[in-house]
């Protein structure tokens, strides 16, 4: 029972990070129908920039409380990645908006490779230990399950980010413009919405969410690396499709469910299969679940779109 509780906690933490990244995929997809393959790399850049900044701050402004430092580096990293994602959209995706659909997909893959390579050149290819800025003593829940302050932070920050995003999308002018553009860019333009501005804004918001996820990912696992964006990126994309791509609530539900399935699955697969399959199969849960899910519901859990339009 305690193993289950522990795995649920781990799964929720993992899932909330997937959810943040999945929102970036789903928003971009909802508006311009592009799988932004470089989105996982934004997470990676955010994590590496914050790592470099922590080092610099600890040298030049020692004695800052951990959470202030973390908040500050996250903010700066968000500014950097927002500018980056804005530029990427402008240079690599916007010129191809009316091209065959596979063209921007290939530039997205190119951008993802480019960002990894540049990160390797700028930050060198080694694994960087990510300092623990929050207290490290775990808090006991129940008999043998524990939760760390970092994990609590992840859950709280995710909840706050999600609520802010939902507010932004549902109750602000920009949010309405985003929804209108997702529905039909041409009609939205006729109604006085500037689709290009909305698309840029979407990329900036996506970058902020991914950076928050990246900083939390690095703090939670204690390391940062130039390929760290690949797997969370893939899983988050899977989560977005799982929940029904283009649907914000779907991305959140998909992300959290995926995290839970992965954590619980890898905790129990050894017992279930009598030791034949071990927890090293954890990475395939996401995909097996996805394939089963899409076979049953081709448009995802909460997707309403007809499969034909995808």
């Amino acid at each position, binding site marked *: 029972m305690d193993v289950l509780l522990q795995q649920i906690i781990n799964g929720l933490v993992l899932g909330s990070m997937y959810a943040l990244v999945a929102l970036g995929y789903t928003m971009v997809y909802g508006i311009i129908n592009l799988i932004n393959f470089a989105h996982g790399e934004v997470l990676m850049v955010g994590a590496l920039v914050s790592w470099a900044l922590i080092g610099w701050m600890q040298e030049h402004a020692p004695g800052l409380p951990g959470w202030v430092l973390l908040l500050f580096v996250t903010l700066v990293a968000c500014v950097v990645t927002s500018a980056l994602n804005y530029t990427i959209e402008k240079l690599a995706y916007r010129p191809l908006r009316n091209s065959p659909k596979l063209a921007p997909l290939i530039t997205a893959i190119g951008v993802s490779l480019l960002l990894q390579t540049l990160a390797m050149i700028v930050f060198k290819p080694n694994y960087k230990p990510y300092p623990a800025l929050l207290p490290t003593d775990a808090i006991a829940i129940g008999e043998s399950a524990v939760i760390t302050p970092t994990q609590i932070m992840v859950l709280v920050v995710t909840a706050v980010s999600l609520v802010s995003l939902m507010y932004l999308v549902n109750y602000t002018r920009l949010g309405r413009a985003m929804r209108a553009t997702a529905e039909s860019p041409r009609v939205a333009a006729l109604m006085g919405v500037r689709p290009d501005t909305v698309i840029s804004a979407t990329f900036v918001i996506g970058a902020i969410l991914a950076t928050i996820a990246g900083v939390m990912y690095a703090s939670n696992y204690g390391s940062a690396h130039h390929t760290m964006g690949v797997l969370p990126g893939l899983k988050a994309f899977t989560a977005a499709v799982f929940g029904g*791509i283009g649907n914000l609530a779907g991305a959140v539900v998909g992300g959290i469910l995926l995290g839970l399935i992965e954590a619980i699955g890898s905790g129990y697969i050894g017992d279930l299969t009598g030791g034949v399959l071990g927890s090293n199969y954890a990475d395939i849960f996401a995909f097996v679940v996805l394939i089963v899910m899409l*076979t049953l519901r081709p448009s995802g859990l909460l997707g309403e779109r007809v499969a034909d339009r995808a």
Partner: protein
Amino acid sequence: MASTDASRRDRFLVIAFSTFGLLILPLVLQSAGNFWVRIADTALLYVLLALGLNIVVGYAGLLDLGYVAFFAIGAYMYGLMASPHLSEHFPWFAALFPHGLHTSVWLVIPLGAAVAGIFGVLLGAPTLKLRGDYLAIVTLGFGEIIRVFMNNLEAPINITNGPRGLDQIEPVTLFRFDWFGIPGINLGKRLEIGGYTLSSVTLYYYLFLALVVLSVIICHRLELSRIGRAWMAIREDEIAAKAMGINTRNMKLLAFGMGATFGGVSGVMFAAFQTFVSPESFSLMESVMIVAMVVLGGLGHLPGVILGAVLLAAMPEVLRWVAGVWDLQRLTDGRLDASILRQLLIALAMIIIMLLRPRGLWPTPEHGKSLPSGAK
């Protein structure tokens, strides 16, 4: 009539010259070092892969991001059938085949093609209802599942030897007839013909070239056939194709299956050529590169696909050599070594080529019927 004769003569000349060029290429490269022939060999393997993926993505318009799985299936198939791995790990197997399983490549090629093809259909079956991007993520997931299994299937039964991979795979032996006592030509060793030496990589070059030529002919015939037309109809408008009486389900499964057989055959060749396979060679990046080759070259257009494959396969290797000659690593304080430069330039090439030529470097001349889900 005169003009047809002239164009026929031109066509003949082009074919004659390119045949001559392709036949003599490894001999020229060989004199500069086997390194260069090896690059040509790799490029041919990628051409084979790109031709197969072109059937799925280019003709039928099904975006497959897990194509490397079929490559892996072929490679492991040959790896298991032509290395001592099975007899070393299974006593009953060693008892059955005391001298190991030295399967002839002529048996493994059709077998690899068939098994990969079956997997292709298995993958296609649950995805029939899916379109576009949903299909992309499912195929991607399939590729990852296969890779994770290759990486972990060493316990409790050691089938793939895990991350260490299979080694001591036998090279291909051609024209071996044990009954008549003819030893055949072992492509793993160099061959001397009247004082002239053909290195092992050169011999493989000719084998791969033969396979590529055969594949090009098959693809070309397919493109012109009823099946090819049906695929393209599905690519352009699936509902209309269905309404016109095309069995879209069978046609899509056929595309997946046929594409996968090419992947399987190139996998078999890859394993024989490298004499070593490990899960590392079958990463997602590899799938993505093959898609990039097809799209950068010109989706659905055979010359374009071949160009894309040769370019993306050979260019990075040449660049690696250039970086070595200039000693970039020393110049840039160890930050920019050959492999990083290679990756940087591939990434830039993917972005720049697409920005300048979104339909590919050498697209189909027929307008409006060449790309899946084109601009709406």
